């Protein structure tokens, strides 16, 4: 459907050689993964502003703290004089990108190598707090006092810009904006660039920092956020549970280093896994609600399976979009339809139960969790799934992580506007 057999047979293979995460669980790949598998969560009452006037009081914020302990000390990552040139979503993107690039060990030595290394990091919303602050400056009649850094601080593609400047990566410099599907689209599209020969290495992923008054108020007005668990933040994100009442917003970034397989092998890089399938679709239905039976999601997953050339039954783990909204059961329906008779063998969880919905960063962070699920043969849990709103043959990994044989994983992300993306990762 999305790729002719001819292209598929010739395409270059793409592997993941570096990963970085900053999330409400903290900083660092292994720190995030061990906390996630242990069933911990990153939720609390919103601290970046006073949410008392709004219906939703809970979010997942990146914890501050000394470097090396899982906390964020921004000056260790972004020089103080540069911090004001970037909105927080860029700060978080820089932290995760730095971890991923260093983890990969990729240091281009020649101009040719630099020109073959690109960046594609997106965001769902971009510099919302920066836009809010600048609007006040203009509203107060101080338009001439607007910082010259306002625009580059708010622009979504500036994570890619800053990463390229920091490391001298002169290849394709691109960005993705597809709301909550951004992270998967960025990794999928960047993989395609490598497959098609536009680059040998791509730094890809998503970053988001929308836990601010404008972000929380906006999603509250859209009736998208959980409001029933303001006094018990750890219980607010509960995918597939009958008492779920909306998503919990999180902030953070997930970045991977993607590399052409032979290129990675030649330099002896550590290889986490391979991007084998990628599928996209549009609902053509409604700006915020998924179509009946989440048929757009079904088509995205089906396209990913087809491009991977695998048997659906070989997928051992699905990282669901699973936002803790009414749409959870529609995704479940689509996944059941995809797996058919094999539904009883697959595990599917929503890690948003631990970190919330990172919007444009969600798909990237969740793709990384899926790769780690393959690496360790562990399906991370769905927290708070006390009473599923309906039964399913699919094991949704309630409460506790499960040790399972996982060689192939599928990760889903769907966004406002009716955009759907699925990615399939495999052990190498």
């Amino acid at each position, binding site marked *: 459907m999305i790729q002719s057999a001819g292209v598929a047979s010739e395409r270059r293979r793409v592997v993941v050689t570096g990963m970085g995460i900053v999330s409400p669980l903290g900083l660092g790949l292994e720190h995030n993964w061990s906390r996630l598998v242990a069933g911990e969560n990153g939720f609390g009452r919103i601290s970046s502003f006073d949410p008392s006037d709004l219906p939703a009081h809970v979010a997942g914020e990146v914890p501050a703290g000394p470097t090396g302990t899982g906390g964020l000390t921004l000056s260790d990552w972004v*020089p*103080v*004089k540069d911090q004001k*040139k970037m909105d927080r979503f860029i700060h978080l993107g820089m932290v995760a990108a730095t971890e991923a690039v260093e983890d990969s060990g990729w240091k281009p030595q020649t101009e040719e190598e630099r020109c073959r290394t690109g960046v594609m990091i997106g965001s769902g919303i971009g510099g919302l707090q920066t836009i809010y602050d600048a609007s006040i400056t203009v509203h107060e009649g101080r338009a*001439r*006092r607007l*910082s*010259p*850094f306002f625009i*580059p601080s708010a622009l979504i593609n500036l994570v890619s810009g800053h990463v390229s400047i920091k490391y001298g990566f002169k290849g394709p410099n691109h960005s993705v904006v597809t709301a909550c599907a951004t992270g998967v689209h960025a990794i999928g599209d960047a993989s395609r660039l490598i497959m098609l020969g536009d680059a040998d290495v791509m730094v890809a992923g998503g970053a988001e920092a929308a836990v601010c008054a404008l972000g929380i108020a906006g999603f509250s007005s859209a009736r998208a956020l959980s409001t029933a668990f303001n006094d018990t933040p750890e219980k607010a994100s509960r995918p597939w549970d009958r008492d779920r009442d909306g998503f919990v917003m999180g902030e953070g970034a997930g970045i991977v280093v993607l590399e052409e397989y032979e290129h990675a092998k030649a330099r002896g890089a550590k290889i986490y896994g391979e991007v084998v399938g990628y599928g996209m679709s549009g609902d053509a239905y409604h700006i915020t609600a998924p179509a009946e039976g989440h048929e757009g999601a079904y088509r995205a997953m089906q396209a990913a399976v087809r491009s991977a050339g695998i048997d659906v039954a070989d997928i051992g783990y699905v990282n669901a979009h699973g936002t803790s909204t009414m749409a959870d059961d529609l995704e479940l329906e689509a996944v059941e339809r995809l797996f058919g008779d094999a539904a009883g063998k697959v595990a599917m969880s929503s890690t948003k139960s631990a970190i919330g919905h990172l919007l444009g960063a969600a798909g990237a962070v969740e793709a990384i969790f899926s790769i780690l699920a393959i690496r360790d043969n562990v399906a991370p849990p769905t927290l708070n799934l006390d009473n599923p709103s309906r039964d399913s043959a699919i094991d949704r990994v309630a409460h506790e992580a499960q040790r399972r044989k996982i060689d192939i994983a599928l990760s889903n992300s769907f966004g406002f506007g009716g955009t759907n993306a699925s990615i399939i990762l495999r052990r190498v």
Partner: protein
Amino acid sequence: MSEIADKVKKIVVEHLGVEESKVTPEASFIDDLGADSLDTVELVMAFEEAFSVEIPEDAAEKIATVKDAIDYIEKQKAA
């Protein structure tokens, strides 16, 4: 050092994240203190705000060193 010079120095240290000892009168914002063109725009805005003066664009373009800034502001304040 005048009060104005002190305040200019403080603003430069704050905005460019440089050590105070480097902010000499002769120091060039771009060549010595690591500023780029947008940094200098922001610096001039900070001077305007801090000293309640207007620095028109053609004047701002001529402010290249710490001393240039101090001289310009002192002249405006004396006028």
